[in-house]
């Protein structure tokens, strides 16, 4: 079986709210695919559709070319962590993994192996109800690993983890991808995925805004611009414009240059004896790139009762705009 997730044209409506609006992407083996977007973008709904829990109105989701409901022993095809709190509080971690193992024709030995892998051995026989959120996340990961699946999905796995746990989680996700597995990790915070994901699917309002590698996303946001600091602003502008660059004065002694690499700029300025004190490649952070991309998708979230539109005078009450009314529906879809 091929280790992929294919999501094609998913549409789903919860009452008046459109939760998924043509969601389409593919998760490939051997890399970590980050699934980012603001709350209510449709990430969790997409994951539930992939696992056959929710039925889409249109479109389909396939695991290795098969719909989830057609899988035999599904946990050996896909491991998923959707909600770490989904536990019977009075049942121990080991017994939780034991029934899951039995449902897949696996033995208690396999349950013990994933307990070890998730670092839960010391607490495995205690009531799961007494676990911290971080311990529950580890238990959820152990459950996902139970069938040793080639495809893994984690919904907000960093939630509630302490810094040590986050470091562990990153290393763990990388090792999974290193073994050739397809890994899909969702988060509403780009920062969590910045140093982890190889590929990004950015979702907003139930659809894909960007489906790209991390490097491409950053360079697209950066736009190949170079910052220049010089005391001879006019001379520098003349020299660089002659070389075909677009030059913008951004301050008394600062310029932004587009169309030339930093190396070319240094060479040109040096050749013309124009003094300069700093040449720097302007590099956007992933967070900036993400904010840029999701601004439209996230906009409606700023609305809500009491929200004042941009045109409203501060002191005067005014009714929320259409974006404001969309907010509760959008939040409904997030559940």
């Amino acid at each position: 079986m091929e280790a992929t997730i294919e999501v094609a044209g998913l549409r789903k409506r919860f009452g008046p709210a459109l939760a998924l609006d043509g969601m389409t992407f593919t998760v490939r083996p051997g890399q970590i695919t980050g699934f980012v977007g603001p709350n209510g973008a449709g990430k969790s709904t997409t994951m539930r559709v992939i696992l056959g829990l929710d039925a889409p109105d249109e479109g389909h989701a396939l695991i290795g070319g098969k719909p989830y409901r057609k899988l035999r022993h599904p946990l050996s095809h896909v491991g998923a962590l959707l909600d770490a709190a989904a536990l019977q509080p009075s049942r121990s971690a080991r017994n939780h993994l034991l029934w899951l193992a039995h449902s897949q024709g696996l033995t208690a030995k396999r349950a013990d192996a994933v307990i070890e892998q998730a670092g839960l051995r010391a607490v495995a026989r205690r009531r799961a109800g007494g676990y911290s959120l971080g311990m529950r996340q580890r238990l959820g990961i152990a459950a996902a690993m139970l069938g040793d699946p080639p495809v893994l999905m984690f919904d907000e796995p960093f939630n509630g983890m302490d810094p040590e746990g986050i470091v562990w989680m990153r290393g763990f996700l990388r090792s999974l991808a290193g073994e050739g597995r397809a890994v899909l990790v969702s988060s509403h915070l780009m920062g969590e995925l910045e140093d982890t994901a190889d590929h990004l699917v950015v979702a907003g309002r139930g659809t894909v805004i960007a489906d790209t590698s991390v490097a491409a996303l950053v360079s697209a946001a950066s736009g190949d611009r170079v910052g220049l600091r010089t005391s001879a602003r006019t001379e520098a502008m003349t020299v660089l414009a002659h070389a075909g660059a677009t030059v913008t004065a951004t301050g008394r002694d600062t310029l932004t240059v587009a169309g030339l690499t930093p190396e070319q700029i240094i060479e040109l300025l040096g050749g013309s004896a124009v003094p300069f004190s700093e040449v720097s490649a302007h590099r956007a952070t992933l967070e900036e790139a993400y904010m840029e991309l999701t601004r439209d998708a996230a906009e409606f979230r700023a609305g809500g009762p009491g929200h004042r539109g941009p045109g409203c005078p501060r002191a005067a009450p005014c009714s929320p705009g259409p974006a404001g009314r969309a907010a509760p529906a959008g939040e409904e879809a997030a559940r």
Partner: protein
Amino acid sequence: MTTITPYRPAVQAGRDGFGQLLRAEWTKFRTVRGWLIGLGVAAVVTVLLGVLTGGSNDIACATGPGSPVKHGRACLPPPPPTAPGGQPVRDAFYFVHQPLAGNGSLTARVTSLTGRYAAGQGPYPQLTTPGLQPWSKGGIIIKTGTKPGSRYAAMLVTGSHGVRMQDNFTQDSAGLPGLVSAVSPRWLRLTRDGDTITGYDSADGAHWNLVGTAHLTGLPATVQAGLFAASPDHTVINQNFGGGESGTSDPSQATAVLDRVSLAGSAGGAWTGTQVGGGAAAAAPGRFQRAGDAFTVTGSGDIAPVPPGDGNGLGPNITIERNLAGAFAGLIAIAVVAALFITAEYRRGLIRTTLTASPRRGRVLAAKAIVVAAVTFMAGLAAAVVAVAAGNHLAAAKGFYLYPVTGLTEVRVVAGTAALLAVGAVFALGMGALLRRSAVAVTAVIVAIVLPYILVVASILPVGTADWVLRLTPAAGFAIQQSVPAYPQVYGLYTPNGGFFPLSPWAGFAVLCAWAAAALGLAAYRLRRRDA
């Protein structure tokens, strides 16, 4: 870009099958201590309440004013005769008979059946009020001997049930309808052929109808054949407002006039009159007169089974199912556990994990139902066995008459109680899956099963309503506990609070099963259709 080698799992999954799903659900069940405790509570409550309801009362009695008070077993009247099937019976009548050796045939024409009864005038009532009881009877009978409880087959006319053929106390089939009189006589015939006795009736002595056939195994070569009359007590039952009933019972007597009596076969000797059995004979002694082939036979008593309950001459008695009266309380605990088995998963979102592990949702619900039914059945069976053993032991020690039932009936009542709890658990599971909330599901189960049962058993509902409640609601399933059937040939009030259900044991149980199947089926439909 590097080439990626797709991951090959090192762990090999086992075979896919329903057995794994069952095992997983069983692991789920046994690893929540609260559910095991709930099951234990159900068993204990069933036993304790059953034993307390059964024969735990003290018995005291006195034969008259000033006589010493007796206790326990000393209060029991002598044990009643029993039918070949083991049931306690009343076998008291006036018998005019002669021996019949080998095969033969007995024919007679009944021209009149009249009766008198006492209407509650003190301890030694006079039979002054004319009138027949519904089951006053007179006719012809072939019987092993004159010992009470011995095998027989009879053709008879009755007070208000027409001609009947009855044999071995419990068998009863109808012949010609209507009252007998001089202008509308009834011809009766019994033919013996080996162990088989066949009954016929006729309105004119020329055209005969087959009424029934009795197989009396081990019938001796020589039997007693002849004429008889009997009349059960005049019983008046008052249904009290708001439930419950009270009754009076007074002796009665029936007189049958028979002529054209002929006994064909190796019969010999004279007609002898014998009072079979005792009881009401002291107040209303039997007798007969003969004029040629015409006989007038007067007798009191009855040839019929004795149902359990009060005022039937058995003394303080209990049926086996009285020890199992705690089942309704056990069912409440069972319902809580069974509903939680699914609603706890909804509450925590664990249902998503379950459905991710087993995407075929109908099978998940089926596995849950089987597991919850199996564990409940085992717990219920243990509780029922203990309750019956302890209850019978205690009742016998206190001096109760244990109403006898066959081994097969005992198995049906005990295992049926366990099955009742198991199917009730499946119903609760179905309601839990439908309603997704423990409290709502448990309330629904209590309202549907336990409440109707309590309203009926506590006689809060009038009898007519109670009957319909026990036909339509899942509480009909409690019928599986009824060990003694209602006998149509014995007049009495067979009410649910007396342990008599309007549906037969298996039909009542089927009603409960239908409810459970409907709840589970609807739940499976919704589970498949809805997002999890």
